């Protein structure tokens, strides 16, 4: 999986591409946690290029949302499609995140 990061003054944008398996989720977790620990709380994660995400990837995103929501932060997921979009809907995680087309 490719993870490209764009950091502005108060927002971190991650552009993901490929399949997110358990080992990719671990890398993503470390990356996101380091930003949270540096004080960032607004995250935009672009999923247009993601064709697969497993339960570990879903768990990482939930973990980050749990960390930033109490700080009035948010994780916005953009561009989920296909089975990735279906997974968020079936697990009702589309209610945990701000989902944008």
């Amino acid at each position, binding site marked *: 999986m490719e993870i490209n990061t764009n950091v502005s003054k108060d927002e971190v944008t991650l552009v993901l591409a490929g*399949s997110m*398996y*358990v*080992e990719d989720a671990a890398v993503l977790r470390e990356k996101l946690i380091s930003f949270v620990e540096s004080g960032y709380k607004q995250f935009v994660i672009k999923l247009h290029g993601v064709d*697969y995400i*497993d*339960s*570990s990837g*879903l*768990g*990482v995103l*939930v*973990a980050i949302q*749990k960390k930033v929501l109490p700080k009035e932060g948010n994780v916005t997921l953009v561009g989920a*499609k*296909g*089975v990735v*979009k*279906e*997974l968020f809907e*079936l*697990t*009702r*995680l589309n*209610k*945990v995140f701000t989902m944008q087309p």
Partner: protein
Amino acid sequence: MYSFSSLAEFATLRDTIRKELIQDCEEDALRLFIAINEGVNNAIFHGNKKDVTKKVQLIIEKSPDEIQVIIRDEGDGFVETKTSDAMELWNEDGRGLDLIGLYVDSYWRNAKGNEITLVKKISPTYCKPF
């Protein structure tokens, strides 16, 4: 049959397995792969507890109208607790069995708890686009 002892070994087989599943319906093949991947991760992490001296066996058997998948580890067996029917939204883990339940037509564990069998219908009438 596939046999592997670590996540790294399984990672080298994922694309082959995904392709093997595709028959008439790519979408349902991917849905079945989701269930297989979750079952294998459970076998590696919870069954064999990441012990690379222990193997995971993955057996895929096709019939005209369904695919049956057996995932067997060499651990002592474990009982995975299903989160709940409603799924605990804010849990960071524990969704594996929920995803298996969502993406196969039926599944069961053996008595020891070291083997799970998944069944997915493959009739084109079951094929559902995303």
